[in-house]
């Protein structure tokens, strides 16, 4: 595999087609066999007032995190792009429109801000688009064309991506877009050979790649489909809404239904109702929605009803920062709600795990008759990665419910206290199995019962049940180079990918560092984590929340205070930030 590793950024004003261009770039390079990790940021407004940035990391092997520095900046709007120059590598390349419609005073062109060692390529995007298609709308495509020829990407890769996106919009639209791309490509070949020799070339890696480009949200939605859900109930909230939108299109094709409820409370209620009746269902929300769901989640715990809830974390608290990323719902997910209400909480760290853990959630929810909360984040939900989805198996749609044997017919105790803590669950309407279910504390038969001994026993059973789930949960994963590292870095969610890259970088420089990935937040693998911590000198826990919520959860397992690295800037953590912190501790 090649050592290609470049990050391309497209920056423009909303309305410039920045996001569309980023999508085409990702598609084209994925088609050419590269591995992509891409993340866009854009304002809430549709037109005219905000900066849109797409960032794509393009490598030969699957990247774990975004790069801290950009290698190529394509500017569709100089005023916005100028602010991105500090992120550009010292010898990075800038592509800009060198024929704007009006004269610019000094400093308003990006050309005035380019560093001494940076390479500047001027391409008249606007004129090329006008010349090829008669309108300025295609200037983003002309820019992509010039980029493609400069960096040695075959036009064919882009043509396929353009056909996929614009084909459905009709012959005329497709033609105009292809013409604009080709105009930019031609220009790059003919007029831009000064200095382009030194640029990395993105030559085709594979013929017809089988990898798909998926965002976290789409991976989750696909997993839900593959898990065979019958129903989805939800209420729109950034950044989880795309899941509902995707399922609204796809779920009916399998005979299922998507229902938009009046709020999050009714959403979780309906999910519980669906699972109670034996059908898989799901809801996805964000922090504020999770808070609304809390009481009914604990109802699920008390009444031992399965549920799958996705919390796509965003900046908080309260309405917080809806379009920014954060990891600050750990406390709420693990502890939220009245009473002793343990539930399963999982945290995927990349798009593949989004898919895998969603599938697993349904299995765990059914087997352990418990709500399962999946914690993702804005960054993970919206970022796009190339991956090969595992093929569906029987186990995915299979039924993980634990049903009662026939000999309990006629004498069925719904909440029987068993060795594992799991009480076999009959579905309502099963002949010979009559039971009651309630959110009140209850006896083994499900009849409300407030006696002190009962409550003690029932609480103990419920807790034992959860503890028994541990072997079924994804265990922590170690990344060690030596037996006794000076420093162990523990993280969760997408921050882990960034941390691992920082740790690998430190290991290359000879520092004694290791990493540990946590994906099961509750219950957590105290023993395995503890053993890892034993081996390490210090422990560093970087996470995107202010209080150090993972540190609060597992910090006690270490013999001394863990070192926290907390960031709530709304942006994903940078490799450099973690690396510098590692350095400062270990050096």
């Amino acid at each position, binding site marked *: 595999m090649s050592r290609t590793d470049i990050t391309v950024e497209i920056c423009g004003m909303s*309305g410039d087609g920045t996001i569309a261009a980023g999508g085409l770039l990702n598609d084209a390079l994925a088609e050419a066999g590269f591995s992509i990790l891409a993340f866009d940021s854009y304002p809430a407004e549709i037109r005219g007032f905000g900066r849109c940035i797409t960032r794509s990391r393009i490598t030969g092997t699957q990247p774990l995190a975004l790069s801290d520095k950009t290698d190529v900046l394509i500017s569709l709007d100089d005023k916005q792009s100028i602010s991105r120059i500090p992120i550009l590598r010292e010898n990075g390349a800038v592509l800009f429109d060198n*024929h704007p*419609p*009006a004269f610019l005073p000094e400093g308003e062109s990006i050309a005035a801000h380019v560093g001494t060692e940076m390479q500047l390529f001027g391409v008249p995007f*606007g*004129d090329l688009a*006008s*010349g*090829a*298609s*008669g*309108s*300025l709308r295609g200037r983003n495509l002309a820019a992509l064309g010039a980029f493609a020829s400069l960096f040695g990407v075959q036009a064919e890769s882009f043509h396929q991506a353009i056909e996929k996106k614009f084909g459905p919009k009709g012959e005329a639209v497709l033609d105009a877009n292809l013409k604009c791309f080709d105009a930019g490509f031609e220009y790059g070949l003919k007029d831009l050979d000064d200095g382009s020799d030194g640029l990395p070339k993105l030559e085709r890696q594979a013929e017809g790649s089988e990898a798909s480009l998926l965002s976290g949200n789409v991976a989750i939605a696909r997993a839900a489909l593959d898990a065979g859900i019958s129903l989805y109930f939800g209420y729109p909230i950034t950044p989880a809404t795309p899941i509902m939108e995707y399922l609204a299109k796809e779920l009916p094709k399998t005979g299922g239904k998507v229902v938009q409820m009046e709020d999050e409370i009714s959403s979780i209620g309906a999910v519980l109702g669906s699972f109670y009746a034996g059908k898989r269902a799901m809801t996805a929300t964000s922090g504020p929605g999770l808070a609304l769901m809390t009481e009914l989640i604990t109802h699920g715990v008390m009444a031992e009803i399965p549920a799958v809830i996705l919390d796509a974390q965003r900046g908080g608290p309260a309405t917080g920062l809806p379009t920014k990323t954060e990891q600050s719902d750990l406390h709420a997910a693990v502890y939220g709600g009245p009473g002793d209400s343990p539930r399963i909480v999982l945290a995927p760290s990349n798009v593949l795990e989004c898919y895998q853990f969603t599938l697993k959630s349904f299995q765990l929810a059914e087997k352990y008759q418990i709500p399962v909360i999946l914690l993702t984040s804005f960054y993970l939900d919206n970022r796009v990665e190339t991956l090969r989805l595992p093929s569906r198996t029987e186990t995915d749609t299979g039924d993980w419910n634990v049903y009662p044997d026939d000999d309990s017919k006629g004498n069925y105790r719904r909440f029987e206290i068993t060795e594992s803590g799991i009480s076999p669950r009959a579905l309502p309407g099963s002949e010979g199995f009559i039971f009651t279910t309630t959110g009140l504390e209850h006896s083994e038969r499900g009849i409300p019962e407030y006696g002190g001994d009962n409550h003690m026993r029932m609480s103990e059973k419920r807790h034992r049940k959860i503890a028994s789930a541990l072997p079924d949960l994804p265990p922590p994963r170690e990344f060690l180079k030596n037996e006794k590292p000076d420093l162990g870095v523990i993280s969760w969610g997408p921050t882990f990918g960034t941390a691992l890259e920082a740790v690998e970088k430190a290991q290359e420089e000879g520092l004694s560092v290791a990493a540990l990935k946590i994906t099961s937040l509750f219950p957590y693998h105290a023993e395995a984590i503890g053993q890892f911590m034993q081996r390490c000198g210090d422990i560093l826990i970087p996470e995107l929340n202010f209080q150090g919520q993972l540190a609060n959860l597992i910090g006690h397992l270490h013999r001394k205070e863990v070192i926290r690295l907390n960031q709530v800037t709304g942006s994903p953590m940078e490799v450099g930030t973690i690396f510098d912190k590692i350095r400062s501790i270990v050096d």
Partner: protein
Amino acid sequence: MTRKADPIQSTRAEDFDYMKVNVPCQDACPVLTNVPAYIRAVYENDFTLSYNINLESNLFPGVLGRICSRPCESKCRHGEKELGKPVNICYLKRAAADFRDRQVPRETLIHHRISKNVAIVGAGPSGLAAAHDLALSGLSVSVLEAMEKPGGMLYYGIPAFRLPRAVLTEEIERVLDLGIDFRPGIRLGKDITLAGLLKDFDAVLLATGCYHPRRLNIPGEAFDGVFSGLQFMMDLNSGRPPRVGKKVLVLGAGFTAFDCARSALRLGAEDVSICLRRTEEDLAVTREEVLEAKREGVRIESLMVAKTILGNGNLKRVEFIRTRPGLPGTAGKREITTIKGSEFVLDADTVIAATGQGPEPIPILDERTPEGIVTVEKGSFRSPVAGLFAAGDYVTGPSTVIQAIAAGRKAAAAIVTEMTGRDCRERVVRIEDTVTTDRPRTWDFLPTLEIPTLEPMQDRFDINPKEVELGYAEEQAQTESKRCYLCYLHYEIDIKRCIYCRYCIDVAPRDCIKLVKRMTTNENGAVTGFEETSVWRDVNGIIIDNSRCIRCGACMKICPVDCISVSKVQLLERPIGRAEEA
């Protein structure tokens, strides 16, 4: 400007001012040729119509399409800095002349015959233009010409490889066929007197041009081998080619100098240099002319002035002195000073001094014509002597062919007015509804088409002079015509219906649509400027700035409330009484 269903023929001052700014090519043309209309005709493959539009204004399209100085092209909107190169307006005129129907209908009289007669002295472009207009106005016209052939500088000053004789002759014949009494071989002051003419004719128009070569006034000027540029060309064009040596130095910077240099090569010279007082930057000839001259092997030396011609009766060498150019003076030309002590010498066996001409003095009439040159009131063409008029280079000094034609026509109008008490020509701005441009934006990026020239180089030096510029082919002409923005289109926003969505500004290809606080107008009511603002509160209107507009139509296409209108606005300059073409 208001719009009505029928075309409006406006004579309002503000509309004339509008045309100056909005159709700069036409405004730059001394005879106000309707450039966009004739280019559009080429696009529509109607070369005859294109030719006729030219005929109406400039009378000699085939000739001008080859040798005009093209004041229109330097003003062409497509030639603005960031928009590219100007449209090749002149080459398109030539294409119209090359591809039109060969039969040109004979022009008819505009008015009845008037029993007055006019004598025009000089059959150059100025005289011929005046003769044409006077004949069509019903007067009896006699044209007296000192040389054997009509045409003046066109025949005698310009070499055949730039202007083939056949083209020139055909267009001159067309004018003379209007019943004009052409009398060649008659020189004023020798064969006939001015007093005599004034007695026999109701009016006399002097259009004798500038044939008095300016002397160098340096020692040795009279040596064998030293020619004046004009004499050189006249002899050549009269069928008496001058003898040139091997090493030729041409002094001068105008078309005559280049014509002499290139002609000298064709007459067998091996080493020809044009020696300039200033630099190549300051040459008045077209870029194509300079390029072709260099390709033929002419060298251009600069910053030198001839000081002395050396030899003994026969030219052997020329002494030059270096010059230093200063900043441009009031007339636009740079001041030059010679640099003391910088003399140097170049060998030569032929020197051609093409440093300009002046008008020839004629025998003094009376004290009203000092130094023998008749002067006229500026703009009126009238001299102090009753019935005596003058026009063209004779009055202004050497200028260009198109300016001479304009002067001739204006002088003729002045004469007719004098005779009949009436105006005979009018100007009108014609405004009509039209559909938006059918030009796709992609045409604005078509590269300019170079004119094909005769290759290989050896063919140009044939015994029989061949035309160097070959002219566009029909398809080439059509392609080049696509580049014209058609500035006769006028796009306007109805502010009362505009919702200020500003989509038009988003799609505008340049800063042509503006949010303005205030507009300024001149005394005629024409818009002269805008005070733009980006403070929303101060915006009082949204305006298409027609001086920046390239007539792409994008604004009109995108306007969601359809509040942008388009009309066709043309400046027509024509004889009064000529029926309007449908």
